């Protein structure tokens, strides 16, 4: 089993990396871009177990360590 976690900067937080990448894409002729935001993808391999319990654990891990709720939001899937 695997947990696939995405952590993104909140909309209210300035993302200078995303802005710079947007400019770079535009300067190479890539048009039609509204916005670029850059986050993190984490892949956690699990030993397995009860899915509901794992959901709870991963949610806690995301909240306490893997993301900082002041500046980031997260989503995840367990499969």
């Amino acid at each position, binding site marked *: 089993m695997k947990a696939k976690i995405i952590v993104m900067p909140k909309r*209210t*937080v*300035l993302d*200078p*990396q995303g802005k710079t990448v947007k400019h770079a894409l535009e300067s190479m002729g890539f048009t039609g871009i509204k916005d670029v935001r850059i986050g993190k993808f984490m892949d956690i391999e699990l030993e397995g177990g009860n899915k509901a319990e794992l959901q709870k654990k991963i949610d806690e891990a995301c909240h306490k360590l893997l993301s*900082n709720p*002041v*500046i980031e939001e997260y989503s995840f899937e367990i499969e």
Partner: protein
Amino acid sequence: MKFGVIQFPGSNCDQDAYHALAGILHQPTRYIWHKDVALGDVDCVVVPGGFSYGDYLRTGAIARFAPAMKTVIAHAKAGGLVLGICNGFQILCEAHLLPGALIRNRGLKFICDQIHVRVETVDSPFTNAGKKGQVLRIPIAHGEGSYFAESQVIEQLQREDRILVRYCDKEGKVTDAANPNGSLDNIAGICNETRNVFGLMPHPERASEKLLGSDDGRVVFESILQSSRATHHETASVG
């Protein structure tokens, strides 16, 4: 006044802090290893700058869970003084001892430079030896120093006079041009509600003797010593 300087794997301003406290201010100072759970009889804990745990995940995110930090949190909750410099400030935010977070500089570059900050209030154990409006020339060295918090948190910090230092130009004007990293409201350092925990991005320990170009940073350490004398005096007069 007894000082303790925390050492994490990746701390690199621990010796600068030790030198400022023990060598320049002649205070009893010792290192506290990140695995130590006891602080001993330390009055003020310094969480130094550096790249604790390689800045993995987020700056300060892993250090916050080090055994020593549990004790630092307890020390802070009991009213003990805690000073977080640079990475130390990032760690104190991650540990929820201070609100907000430090994010990537708006220019994306790591900045190593001499900047100016203005003392915004002398109502704290970290600035009481200074003057309101005093301009300090202190170095910064960081890639993630842009202070961010939700607008209601910023308003609360303003209302409660908890912004101790702001980035300014050398005349003391707080302008956007003088803001090196995009920090909201030019915030360079804040304290907690009970005013015993202070975090700042600039390095006062690197500006504590003329030999290094500026001793403006001494005001932070001299304030701590002054507040400790005041507390002792208070205790003595009550007793």
